[in-house]
């Protein structure tokens, strides 16, 4: 064996090299050639915004992301992007990078209401305004603005419509709800809205299945399948997000129960989001109602908050997206306000 003292010396030498390198970064001139850090923006002028999304897995998030991009481009703002793929730690790194780049504002879609709090605090410490997009944080005194839909109200409105249809059939209907990831405040709100509406229906509707999907398409499919097997006469299904409609369609088609609203054997279907899939299914007549979040409006509001903050105007703690329920009854008049309809039409 080689004498060990040499090895430890080598270890220490190497660590010194690392530290030297670190010192070099530390003493690095902020405007090293090519380092395009922005000079501090003049008051009222927003140059860059950092946008950190948890995921881009569904139409809904993509639509929001694209809208933010478009808004920034229209206003001449550079948008820095980050997608965390469900990893809170990664999101924190991305937010910290934005802070280091001295952005003028940060918009975050948090993975979960609690892990985002230290991120907001870090931005607060650097005096950068923070907006939470579509998903609020848990109770905290960290300064931020949340732009989020009133999940409870919108869902209750949607499900009330479904319940009224159920009552019209005259029979007691069995109901199933696909719940989202319960660490997501939005999922909890929607579940609560569903339960409230069903409670008001009294005996007309009985909930026989509550499926925890964790916002996962595969879990949704498996859950719906087993629920339909246990209760073949389910007559009402509500999904906490429209992106799970394909799973529902798959199971019901296999069972021969995928029917339009004016056909016998039709199962009442309701959802939430208002995406293009839901729009198409409603236009075709399979889905009865869906709660619409005004994604575009929320994006505009988010950027407006940052502009306001830069101009010195105070930022509200919460901006509510009132949203609405779109149903077969009001489809024609409301579809222009449904973002999914806009997306679907743009695709054609």
């Amino acid at each position, binding site marked *: *064996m080689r004498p060990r003292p040499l090895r430890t010396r080598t270890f220490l030498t190497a660590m010194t090299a690392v530290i030297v390198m670190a010192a070099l970064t530390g003493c690095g001139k902020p405007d090293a050639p090519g380092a395009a850090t922005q000079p501090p923006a003049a008051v009222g002028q927003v140059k860059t915004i950092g946008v950190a999304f948890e995921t881009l897995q569904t139409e809904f998030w993509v639509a929001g992301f694209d809208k933010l991009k478009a808004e920034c481009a229209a206003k001449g703002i550079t948008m820095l992007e980050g997608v965390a793929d469900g990893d809170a730690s990664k999101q924190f790194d991305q937010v910290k990078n934005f802070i280091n780049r001295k952005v003028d504002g940060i918009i975050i879609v948090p993975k979960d209401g609690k892990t985002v709090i230290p991120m907001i605090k870090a931005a607060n410490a650097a005096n950068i305004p923070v907006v939470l997009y579509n998903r609020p944080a848990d109770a905290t005194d960290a300064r931020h603005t949340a732009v989020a839909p009133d999940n409870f109200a919108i869902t209750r409105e949607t499900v009330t419509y479904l319940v009224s249809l159920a009552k019209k059939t005259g029979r007691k209907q069995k109901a199933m709800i696909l719940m989202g990831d319960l660490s997501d405040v939005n999922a909890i709100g929607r579940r609560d809205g569903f339960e409230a509406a069903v409670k008001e229906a009294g005996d007309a509707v009985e909930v026989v299945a509550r499926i925890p999907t964790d916002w996962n398409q595969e879990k949704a499919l498996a859950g719906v399948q087993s629920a339909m097997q246990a209760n073949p006469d389910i007559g009402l299904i509500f999904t906490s997000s429209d992106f799970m409609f394909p799973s529902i369609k798959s199971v019901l088609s296999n069972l021969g129960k995928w029917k339009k609203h004016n056909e016998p054997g039709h199962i009442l279907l309701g959802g939430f989001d208002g995406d293009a899939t839901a729009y198409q299914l409603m236009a075709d007549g399979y889905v009865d109602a869906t709660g619409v979040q005004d994604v575009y409006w929320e994006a505009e509001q988010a950027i407006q908050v940052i502009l306001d903050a830069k101009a010195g105007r105070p930022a509200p703690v919460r901006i509510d997206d009132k949203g609405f329920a779109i149903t077969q009854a009001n489809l024609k008049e409301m579809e222009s306000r449904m973002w999914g309809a806009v997306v679907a039409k743009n695709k054609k």
Partner: protein
Amino acid sequence: MDFTPNNAERPKTNQEPVVVFERIEKSFFGVKVLQGVSFGVGVGRIVGLVGENGAGKSTLMNLLGGNLQPDAGELRVNGHRYTPRNPKDARAAGIAFVHQELNLFSNLSIAENLFLTDFPLLGIGVPWIDRRALRSRAAELLRQVGLDHSPDTLVERLPAGERQLVEIAKALGAEARVILLDEPTTSLSSRECERLFALVTQLRDRGMALLYISHALGDVLRLCDDLVVLRDGERVGSGATKDFTHDRLVSMMVGRQLNQIYPERRAPIQTGSSESMASPDGGAVLQVDRISQPGIVRDLSFKLGAGEVLGISGLMGAGRSELARILFGLDPFASGEVRLSGELLTGSPRERIRRGLAFLTEDRRQEGLCMEASIADNLALVGLPANSRTPARFLDFTGIQSAVTRMREAVKLSAKATDGQAVRTLSGGNQQKVVLGKWLLMEPKVLLLDEPTRGIDVGAKFEIYQLIHQLADRGAGVLVISSEIEELMGICDRILVMRGGEITGEFRRDDFDRERILAAALHSSKA
């Protein structure tokens, strides 16, 4: 089957040799391993290549087999320049290399092994194997080597000797004109050796050129037509076998007069035969009492005295290695007792090592060494706990280093090898010295050795015998298991013979008699 020895009567052919090495040079890491070696192998001749480990024999074979390229000099096959870049080129040139470690796939059948790189196809565009042609061609090759098995037999069912014949059949199947055999007899029984020799002679008579490397000088002198002797990378002798004697060969290989193969054995302080142990422990450092393990050993008892070298002879399958493994705690036994210096011996190998028991196994590559680790690390391994300080067992590097240096000198490890070198790069003899050094470092009270000189050259063997004697002279008890009766007769004070898990004979040094020892190995004690 018989064969014609040393075709003294056959006329020498006038043709240019099939294989010619001309002034071949090769170095590794700046160390010159071959310096200007030249010789040839003629058609229809068996050429024996002898030399100590490290003399350069394997390097020469690897050059011919396409695994290495020479730094200088020229190789010619059939008169043309021969520059293989890989074993495939060698095969294409008609050269077949039968390695010491066989290259067969034991999970495949004989036929599949024979034609692994060259299956007969049905020729219909899609590469389907023509199983009938495969079987018939394989059967033909098996007939040529005299192996009486169905070609569909899985290789894992064959004993070592028959696997070797399959390798040779493979060479014939590839239509080789030159066959290199590297230490072919190490794992063979004597009957299998005879079979091999007969086949080799047959092949020679059919016009093949054969190059035969072996440490078993007796076999080489019997079998080969010509000899080439290497020492330290140079050819120090060559010619027809009839011009050589065993002693002359040995002295050429070693470079000095080797008067002895075995060091002189002074009478040990205590000769411990079963009768002379009057007192209960009678000075016996190891006491084995009626050990039984069904199917392995039966009611086995013996004593090993301090300072005694005890040999255990017997045929393969007699249970000798199994006995050693039982003594060391690697395998269980059903009844009986083992005592070391009077105290009952129990527990894991680690526990037994603490008590002073050491075990050099018969498979140094798999069980004796960490091949990728350095010489120093291997030498120190057993002694590490003793060289570490509590509480956290920090290692005492100076202590370890001095122990390693001490052991290197004690076992006379090749000076060319550096401490940090991987043991994989060492010759067999040096590797075995490292294993031995590792055990000697702990200064054992009892050392068990299983085939300590297998696959090792003459010079290294002598040094190992010396080390065994030195250890015994320091008061340890040494148990040597070997398949070579001459070796045991040369170094032991007493020999026990085993057959079928029982002891069938005991011989003291004055009574050593090869025929009687062999007889005891062949017959049961009830004969």
